């Protein structure tokens, strides 16, 4: 006898949200409360000792937030999930769950600029070193591993380079060294890629983007597979006695739940970057249409990329959907339903033409976000990546002429109309610059 396996679209609508048992409410109620009364002093003691499940205080857990967490775990194919106030808070939680001062992280270099800063500035100040490895060479990644390395980190689709990570051999490499592979899945979302299916152990993402889908809330979430051997001794934060919990050993006591329990009851509890129940409700609404939205995002992105590649004003396009992309083969393997709707292109005329292009756009919103239902545009060198040094900029693959698009759900003809007008404006500037004016 087999259990029925529900499909992705059904789980996007239902996972984590059965009818409210108390009221019968079909939509997930917003439990906007800071704290929860205990049944008795004994119940309180059991909760604080982590021996029973239940709510104490919304910094550590909340029913509406938990519904979002369970749905994310279901969609990513993980054992469980911990939400946080932002994507950066989620990836920091994942790292602090297994690394401490004196430890080391290996990451691919083509990462979101905020992540690079978090790793190379803030983690460094906390005593956690990070080696960023440029390019797609797995041997170079392996060479960066040290005895004190605790994890390998990458993005499914790199921001803003659009490179696709070769997740399967990367996970095998990590596991051969006793390390987990941590993957930021923000640009793909679980609708297009589920890194755990390829061997990843922890998936983090900014839920602000496609998960929420409407550019309304800042949120992050981590999902863990439940299959990594945390008790091997390589990660003492999980396999040594915890002074915060009467010397309990998370790996021994919670087995496959060790990482998730520590991420919630020590890291989230002490870092304090909790997700609001109101925001969790909005994210649940967003997830209901995630598979439908991602399909439409990809269709529009293909149309826009097809238009741009025919234009003389466009020097290059980095989109793994295009036949001549160096990442086409990897995209076909890991992103068979589409390589998302965020990609970059270069404008002839460089920085000046880029500025003229963005200022001439009417429909595309110039802002620092991606994954909104509305189409977005930005010039990374002057915004998201401006805090990086020239050398770091080159390492993460950002060129001065690069424009990043996040293709939304508008009529594609309207998006193309707007781009065409802006390309003409950029061309005038490019001609002037080219003529030495």
């Amino acid at each position, binding site marked *: 006898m087999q259990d029925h396996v529900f499909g992705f679209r059904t789980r996007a609508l239902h996972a984590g949200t059965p009818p409210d048992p108390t009221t019968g409410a079909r939509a997930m109620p917003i439990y906007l409360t800071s704290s929860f009364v205990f049944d008795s002093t004994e119940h309180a003691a059991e909760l604080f000792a982590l021996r029973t*499940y239940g709510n104490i205080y919304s910094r550590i857990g909340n029913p509406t937030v938990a519904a979002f967490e369970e749905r994310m775990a279901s969609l990513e194919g993980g054992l469980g*999930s911990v939400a946080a106030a932002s994507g950066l808070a989620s990836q920091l939680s994942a790292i602090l769950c297994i690394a401490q001062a004196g430890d080391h992280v290996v990451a691919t270099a083509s990462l979101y600029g905020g992540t690079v800063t978090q790793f190379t500035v803030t983690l460094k100040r906390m005593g956690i070193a990070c080696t960023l490895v440029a390019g797609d060479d797995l041997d170079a990644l392996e060479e960066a591993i040290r005895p004190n390395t605790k994890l390998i980190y990458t993005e499914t689709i790199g921001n803003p380079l659009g490179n696709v990570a070769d997740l399967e051999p990367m996970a095998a490499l990590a596991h051969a060294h006793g390390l987990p592979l941590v993957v930021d899945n923000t640009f793909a979302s679980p609708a297009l890629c589920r890194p755990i299916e390829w061997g990843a152990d922890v998936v983090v993402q900014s839920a602000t983007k496609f998960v929420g889908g409407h550019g309304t809330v800042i949120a992050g979430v981590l999902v863990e597979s439940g299959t990594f051997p945390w008790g091997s001794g390589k990660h003492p934060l999980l396999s040594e006695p915890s002074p915060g919990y009467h010397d309990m050993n998370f790996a021994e006591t919670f087995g496959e739940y060790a990482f998730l329990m520590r991420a919630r009851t020590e890291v989230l509890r002490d870092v304090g970057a909790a997700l609001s129940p109101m925001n969790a409700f909005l994210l649940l609404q967003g997830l209901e249409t995630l598979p439908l939205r991602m399909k439409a995002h990809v269709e529009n992105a293909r149309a826009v990329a097809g238009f741009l590649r025919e234009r003389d004003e466009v020097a290059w396009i980095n989109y793994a959907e295009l036949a001549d992309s160096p990442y086409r083969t990897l995209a076909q393997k890991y992103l068979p339903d589409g390589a998302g709707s965020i990609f970059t292109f270069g404008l002839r005329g460089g920085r000046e033409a880029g500025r003229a292009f963005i200022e001439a756009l009417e429909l595309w919103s110039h802002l620092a976000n991606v994954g909104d239902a509305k189409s977005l545009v930005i010039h990374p060198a002057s915004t998201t990546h401006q805090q990086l040094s020239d050398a770091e900029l080159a390492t993460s693959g950002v060129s001065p002429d690069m424009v990043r698009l996040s293709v939304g759900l508008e009529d594609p003809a309207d998006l193309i109309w707007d781009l065409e007008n802006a390309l003409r404006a950029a061309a005038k500037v490019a001609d002037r610059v080219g003529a030495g004016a």
Partner: protein
Amino acid sequence: MIVETVSGRRDLLARSRTVAMVGASPNPTRPSYFVFSYLRTKGLLDVAPINPATAAIDGVKSYPSLAAYAAECGPPDIVDVFRKAADAPDVTRQAIAVGARAIWFQYGVINDEAIRLADDAGLDVVVDRCLKVESARFDGGLALAGLSSGLISSKRASPPRAAERPRSVEPPPQP
């Protein structure tokens, strides 16, 4: 019968009232104590430790053997096994002898001989699962912790059993 489905485990727990926990430890950092304490305080199952080295855990009498438990309490609905896998066949023979209806092997307690013995004797058999986790899957505990329950349903959950209902100072309204 070997119970391998979510619905099978839900039905097994729903029809069970008593659990004899072989290897329950009074040490509050041990996994078996976490399971014991969870089941005891949740109150949906009557759980008793089977441990000759301790007289009681948290006020619940401990029995030196399954036979001693059955002599006083009758056959247990579930024998929950917290012993190393090599000891599982011996525990299984004792469980069969006292008329247990089901045997539950905790995480890592995987022994083919024990599974076959129990299955042949007509017991329901659960292997490499945690009784606390599976209880929490159906009582909503897992979901509250952000853990995937794997459950999808648009039916309203049945109200908690009488002992779990909130106490009220006023009588319920008359229909």
